[in-house]
C-alpha cells in the first residue's frame, strides 16, 4: 500500500464523505475504501477505453491495408511517383503532391481515425530493409511491437 496525496475542492470532499459514510459506515477506513474504489473504477475505465480505441484502430488499419495490397500493383502501374490516400477501405484519390493528397483526404474522410497516405513507388516495394534504432535505444526497455 502507498499513500497518495491529492487536492480536491470542498464541494467534492463533502460529497465524497457523504457517499463514503453511507456506503461503508462511519468507520475510520470508509474514506480510504471509497477513494480506492473510485480510483480502481477510473483506471479500469481508462484501460477499457484505451483497449477499445486500439482494437478499433487495428480493425481500420487492417481494412485499409488489405485494400491497399489489393490495388498496389494497379497503382504502381498507373500512378508511379504520385500520392494516394485510402480510408474506410476505399481509395480517396490520387494527387501529384503531398499537400494535394492531404487536402483530398481531409475533404473526403475528415474525421476518419485511420487513413493511409503514401507515395506510390515506381515498382513494388518488398518489406523495408532492417534498420537500426541507434545506440540510445539500447537503454530503453522495449515493451513489444506496435
Amino acid at each position: 500500500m502507498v499513500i497518495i496525496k491529492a487536492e480536491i475542492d470542498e464541494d467534492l470532499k463533502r460529497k465524497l464523505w457523504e457517499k463514503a459514510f453511507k456506503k461503508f459506515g462511519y468507520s475510520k477506513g470508509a474514506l480510504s475504501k471509497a477513494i480506492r474504489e473510485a480510483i480502481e473504477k477510473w483506471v479500469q475505465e481508462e484501460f477499457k477505453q484505451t483497449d477499445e480505441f486500439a482494437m478499433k484502430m487495428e480493425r481500420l488499419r487492417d481494412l485499409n491495408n488489405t485494400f491497399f495490397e489489393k490495388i498496389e500493383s494497379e497503382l504502381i502501374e498507373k500512378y508511379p511517383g504520385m500520392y494516394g490516400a485510402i480510408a474506410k477501405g476505399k481509395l480517396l484519390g490520387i494527387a501529384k503532391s503531398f499537400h494535394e493528397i492531404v487536402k483530398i483526404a481531409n475533404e473526403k474522410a475528415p474525421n476518419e481515425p485511420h487513413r493511409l497516405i503514401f507515395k506510390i513507388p515506381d515498382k513494388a516495394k518488398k518489406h523495408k530493409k532492417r534498420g537500426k534504432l541507434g545506440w540510445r535505444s539500447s537503454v530503453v526497455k522495449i515493451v513489444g511491437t506496435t
Partner: protein
Amino acid sequence: MEVKRSENCWDYVSGNLRRPYPVLDVLIIVDGIANQFLFELDTGYDGSLLLPLHLFYELRLNEFEIPRKYWATAETVTGKKIILRTAIAEVQVGSLRFETEIETYEGNNLFLAGLGLIDELKVLLDGVGKRLCIIENT
C-alpha cells in the same frame, strides 16, 4: 527542456549521458498545426524521426500512416527486433520545410533524429562550441 538557440543553431544539452549531446528543434506540421519537439541527433538510427507512441496519436499521425507493408523492421543494438509504425508528415527544421517519415513503436520514449533527417539537411556539428547548426542556402 529549454535549449539555447540562435537562428539555426542549438546548444548541446546535458542529460543522462557522459557528455553533452547534439539536439535540434523540429516542427511537425499536421493540417497546418505545428508542434515543436526537441530531437536528439543519433546517427545510429537510420530512420528520419522517432517519436513516443502517445505523441504519434496525439499529433493524429495515425491519419497519415503509410501502408504497413512499407514499415521498417528495426533492430536495436541489443538485437531486439521491432516493427516501426510509420507516417508521413511535413516538418520544419530552421527555415527548411520538407516531408519526411515519422516512426514510433510501443515502449519508445525517445525523440531521435536519424540519418533520414540528416539526408535532407546540411548539419554542422560544432563539437568545440558544443552546438549543432543547420546550414542553409549554400
